[in-house]
């Protein structure tokens, strides 16, 4: 019994694979290997003097308290952003999925923020919450809340979490809505006939059937908070105050670009790469088992 279509010889399959392989090599493996190589070097900004230092960049990295602080920041930031943006988006999607008047308008409006670039999202939030410029910040102050993200680390972290979450809700909403709409109506109607209340219907039928979408979004969201949020952090807080909003990816950016410490920055990106690979592997290995396709 032959199950698969077969090519005779290796030439044609290899030729067909070649474009994809070439792209992966040039745009992924080549830069990644450069980063690994750079992480073993100590080099001045202009690339005039280069010294091979083995693991010194890594040793410095793991002996620096700021790095562990960034690690903790990243953990807090990613748990909050991924958790909040997923749950709020799910709530919105469930609400918008019901047959209500003007549902299309709500859907469209909820998707809009996704079209806003991260840096612009950051600026919007600055305008609202900057201690001296922001309207909402003035409101908070007049309520007697000492709001000052320029000096208070918790305020600053709250601000970047809000901005990053706001930005991601639309994307999650879109996928959740599509997921909800693909759940067969007959299953839900059957549950209604059996007398299941809305909450019970949601947790026992809708949520499990939505799990492939949720799982996909979890992976995508974690990658988003790990890599794509530095534009927001850069515009809103610049990693401050006192490093309170410096996440791992922001540290890679600020050490490498602002500080011209290419070796240290490369070492950080290698560590970050390994962490994200590990995390994604973990998700596929253990969480995916709970997903019903």
């Amino acid at each position, binding site marked *: 019994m032959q199950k698969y279509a077969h090519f005779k010889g290796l030439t044609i399959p290899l030729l067909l694979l070649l474009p994809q392989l070439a792209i992966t090599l040039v745009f992924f493996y080549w830069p990644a290997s450069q980063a690994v190589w750079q992480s073993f070097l*100590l*080099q*001045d*900004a*202009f*690339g*005039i*003097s280069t*010294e091979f230092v083995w693991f010194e960049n890594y040793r*410095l990295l793991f002996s620096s308290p*700021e790095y562990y602080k960034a690690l903790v920041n990243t953990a807090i930031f990613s748990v909050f952003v991924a958790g909040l943006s997923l749950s709020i988006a799910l709530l919105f999607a469930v609400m918008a999925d019901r047959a209500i008047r003007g549902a299309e308008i709500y859907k469209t409006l909820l998707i809009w923020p996704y079209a806003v670039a991260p840096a612009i999202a950051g600026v919007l939030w600055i305008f609202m919450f900057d201690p*001296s*410029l922001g309207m909402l910040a003035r409101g908070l*102050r007049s309520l007697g809340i000492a709001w000052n993200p*320029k*000096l*208070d*680390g918790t305020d600053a972290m709250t601000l970047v979490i809000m901005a990053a979450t706001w930005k991601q809700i639309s994307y999650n909403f879109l996928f959740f809505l599509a997921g909800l709409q693909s759940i067969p109506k007959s299953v839900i109607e059957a549950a209604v006939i059996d007398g299941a209340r809305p909450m019970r219907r949601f947790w026992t039928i809708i949520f499990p059937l939505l799990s492939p979408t949720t799982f996909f979004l979890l992976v995508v969201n974690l990658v988003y908070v790990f890599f794509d949020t530095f534009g927001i952090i850069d515009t809103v807080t*610049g*990693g*401050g*105050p*006192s*490093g309170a909003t410096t996440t791992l990816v922001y540290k890679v950016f*600020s*050490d490498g*670009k*602002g*500080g*011209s*410490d290419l070796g240290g920055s490369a070492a950080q990106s290698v560590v970050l790469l390994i962490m994200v690979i590990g995390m994604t592997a973990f998700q596929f290995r253990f969480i995916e088992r709970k997903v019903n396709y």
Partner: protein
Amino acid sequence: MTVKLTTLASVAAFAMAAASPALAQTEIQWWHALTGANNDVVVKLAEEFNASQKDYKVVVAYKGSYPDTLNAGIAAFRAGNAPHILQVFEVGTGTMMSAKGAVKPVHELMKDAGETFDPKAYLPAITGYYSTPKGEMLSMPFNSSSMVMWYNKDAFKKAGLNPDAPPKTWPEVFEAGKKLKAAGFDKCGFTNAWATWANIEQFGAWHNIPLSTKVNGMEGFDAVLTFNKDPMFLKHWTNLAELQKDKTYDYSGRTNTGEGRFTSGECPIMLTSSGFFGNVKANAKFDWANAPMPYYPEAAGAPQNSIIGGASLWVMGGKKAEEYKGVAKFFTFLSNVDRQVKLHTESGYLPITKAAYEKVKASGFYKDKPYLETPILELNNKEPTDNSKGLRYGSLVQIRDIWSEELEAALNGQKSPQAALDAAAERGNQMLRQFERTAK
């Protein structure tokens, strides 16, 4: 598709042919970081130079913020196509001068090109920042400023303070801040922009206190930061942290993004760059003035002299002799007395030559506009000492971030002022040691 591509190619070829001038002009690339009115100054200077002669053409390109421009220059050098002239902010001086082969020192450039060049014609307080300890000029000062104390005269009247006798010392500023706070400025009695420039770099020079060994890094990259051991620094940081609690002092961020708090009237006293002038003039809807930075009267020799900020023009290495000749001619053009007078009086940048300063002074210009002379008086207050010539550290961009982080930690009470100062020096020293190894 093929047709389209060919058309495109021929159009491009035609455009290129049309763009190349009939005369073989030598092109000189100048990358800069100035926006708004200051960008116009750069463009106008290039236009005037290009109109003044036929052999060279200066082409300007805006490359983003100061750090962005520096990074663009570095990346271009690594890729082998650096511009001829790169505008680098004063913080990048250490990085640039350590890059042997990547830059061509200005004194060498002028000598090779046979241009008349007298380093003594320039104001020492300005060129000192960009020269070797032997006095050889490494880069050409372009836009220079210093730090002054801007204050809101209307607010002073409201608080019962004399608007014509601004506070001179820090204790007087604290008192004024408290009175202003009581008079309704309850969110911010006084503040500063450029957190570390104000509270470390200028503070050290103005009080004649070294920040590190080796003449603040000017005499070698093996400098070790020592300012954390100085009682004046501890006193100042302790005062700020104390006054931050009830907002007599309020922190306004690491760069100049908080400057709007002065022009909006929120903060009646702000220490920031003299280059803030254009902005104040355009946006402040109240009577304003500026005064020299405050000092602690108990510090011996204070006030000493201030140091400059702003940027200078670096000449990149590995270019043709003919191109260098053009750059040298452009620098001579830039140093011309009348041009400097015009630049200074119109843009508010400091004049870089003595002759230009004397000419403006003689014209009586400062009688109407004393605020433009304040930074010059500060810079020339006394003969610069080893502690007030300027500072030159590698990775200073990153060190400034570290210093800001520690100052923030002291102000929000996470660390004691002494612990914050110690961490600022220790972490700064780590950066310096790493830089020292790469800058051989």
